[in-house]
């Protein structure tokens, strides 16, 4: 602190102001430096209290200095000191655990309930896609090869014999758990990337999200039609249900998140587009997070349960049971008690 051997009598008011306040700024600077190095944990209770006081004093100094001082170095110093202190004082305070709990118990369900229209868009895209795929298959089976990338259907095409198709639905009964972990991890990283993409492209007027979801629905429709044409509709329905209820919901929800962004861009209302996007952003991101969470569950179910659970009725009840759990959670959790 440089108060020590001060010149006898500074004639400038701003210089005197600086001499009086400087010890406080220096103190704040040491506290801020310590917090920057070691995080807020580096400060004990008294330090933290002192940080708050000296921060407010520095802010006050800055405000005064702007009015009375023309010393540019002083203003620059105070400005960056206040900025640094602001960054330390207004740092995120949530613990990761608390954050997650709040997200699950309140934020996500509320965001979903606020997004009825986008959710309808997401599901409509999926269902329309499925219907289109289904119709196309009965129109001309070649659509199957044209629309689905070969890596996705392997040998399960319209040319495969029915016995083979039936076998694919019930294969892997004896697989060991190790394989399944790898499979589930692969599924999740693949699907979550698609979901995030579906979400993010929505910012361009919602249409790209819609198209991607529509395409996903079309693949679903084509697959279903293929198995249906061989009289395997019940089996494939059960096979798809066990993970599909959750997984397709995730895609539709990711699409809804994208649609939320897209609608903000298309119909910003009274605000600027930038402002409308920022407001829609919060809910949209929660929808995307929900989609990723659902995909974790879907990957686990698809990786483990689909292989180990073979009976169609069991598959159906697990799949739709999970779906019911999601609906109950999203519809009921996080409602404010007492109402307003």
């Amino acid at each position, binding site marked *: 602190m440089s108060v020590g051997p*001060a010149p006898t009598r*500074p*004639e*400038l*008011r*701003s*210089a005197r102001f*600086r001499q009086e306040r*400087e010890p406080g700024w220096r103190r704040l600077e040491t506290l801020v430096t310590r917090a920057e190095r070691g995080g807020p944990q580096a400060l004990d209770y008294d330090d933290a209290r002192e940080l708050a006081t000296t921060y*407010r004093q520095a*802010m*006050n100094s*800055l405000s005064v200095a702007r*009015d*009375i*001082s*023309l*010393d*540019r*170095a*002083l203003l620059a*110093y105070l*400005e*960056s*000191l*206040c*900025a640094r202190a*602001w*960054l330390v004082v*207004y*740092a*995120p305070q*949530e613990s*990761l655990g608390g*954050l997650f709990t709040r997200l699950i118990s309140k*934020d996500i369900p509320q965001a979903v309930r606020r997004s009825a229209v986008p959710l309808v868009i997401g599901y409509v895209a999926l269902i329309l896609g499925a219907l289109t795929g289904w119709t196309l298959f009965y129109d001309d089976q070649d659509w199957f090869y044209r629309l689905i990338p070969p890596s996705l259907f392997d040998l399960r095409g319209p040319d495969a014999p029915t016995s083979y198709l039936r076998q694919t639905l019930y294969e892997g009964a004896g697989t060991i758990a*190790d*394989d399944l*972990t*790898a499979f589930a*991890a*692969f599924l*999740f*990283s693949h699907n*979550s*990337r698609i979901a*995030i*993409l579906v*979400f*993010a*492209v929505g*910012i361009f007027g919602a249409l790209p999200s819609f198209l991607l979801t529509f395409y996903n629905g079309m693949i679903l429709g084509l697959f279903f039609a293929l198995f249906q044409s061989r009289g395997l509709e019940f089996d494939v329905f059960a096979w798809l249900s066990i993970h599909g209820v959750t997984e397709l919901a995730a895609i539709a929800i990711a699409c809804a998140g994208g649609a939320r962004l897209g609608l903000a861009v298309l119909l910003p209302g009274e605000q600027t587009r*930038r402002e409308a*996007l*920022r407001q829609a*952003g*919060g809910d*949209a*991101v929660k929808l*995307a997070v929900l989609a990723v969470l659902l995909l974790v569950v879907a990957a686990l179910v698809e990786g483990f349960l689909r292989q180990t659970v073979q009976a169609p009725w069991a598959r159906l009840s697990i799949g739709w049971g999970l779906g019911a759990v999601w609906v109950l959670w999203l519809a009921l959790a996080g409602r404010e008690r007492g109402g307003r």
Partner: protein
Amino acid sequence: MTLQVVEIEGEKRRLEGFTPPEGVPIAFTIATAGTRLGAQMLDFVLTLTVIVLAVIGLLYTRALDFNASVTLISMLALLTRVPYYVLSELLWNGRTIGKRLTGIRVISADGRRLRPSQIVARNMMKEAEFLAPAQVFLMGGESGLMLVLTFLWVCGVAGFFLRNKRRQRLGDVIAGTLVVEQPRAVLLPDLSLAADLPDSAGLIFAPAQLDIYGRHELQALEAILRTPPTGESGQESIRRVAATITRKIGHEPLPLGQELEFLRAFYTAQRAHLERLRLYGTARENKFHAEGQGGKR
């Protein structure tokens, strides 16, 4: 107060009107596009290195069987994308490792603290804006149409980023965040106290002599005095500054070697004068104040 972006020298832009809850606006310097690209590249290389090291380690030690290795690597590949950016920005208040190294950080544009939902929003969009296209180009194996589409997409995203003044990418707009330079604070000595000036009659100024210049000139003089130019040419330029000032204010010409002392004394007197005027409500922005421009604020 709304946010404004003011260009300062070269590439740099200054953000003004950023108001914390205390109500006193503070200024930040907006991070340049180059710095941000650098930070992103650092993060990208860093995460890739982690994955490559893990792969090499697993191949070399054969600690895990094939399936467990695949699981580990694909989970790692996933964690080093969006989750890495979200967690590091959450833990270090808006800084990833790349941002720490390049000295930039994320702040919330509304002056409040950075909220987790903002961090998640900007980084989910990063996946679509940067990471997914990077994967398309790096991995190869995509069709020509896909490459063209991806290229157009990247151009659009980069165009948006470079064209807006605040240097926000799409993710920043959705999240309501800004990326700024880490402020650094150094308190320089007060020039008005720096020198023990002799009270010789030549260094006392009359009010009329101090009515010529305004804030801008005073602070330009401050910049010269803070780092006086050295060497032969430096001496010469100081002499020229002093000569100009003496001519303008009607001061007698200076004896050789006294210029710096004169400038210091003039600075102190001029600052005292202008600050006193300012206190009484007359803020003189520059030397044109007499002509009615820039006189009052």
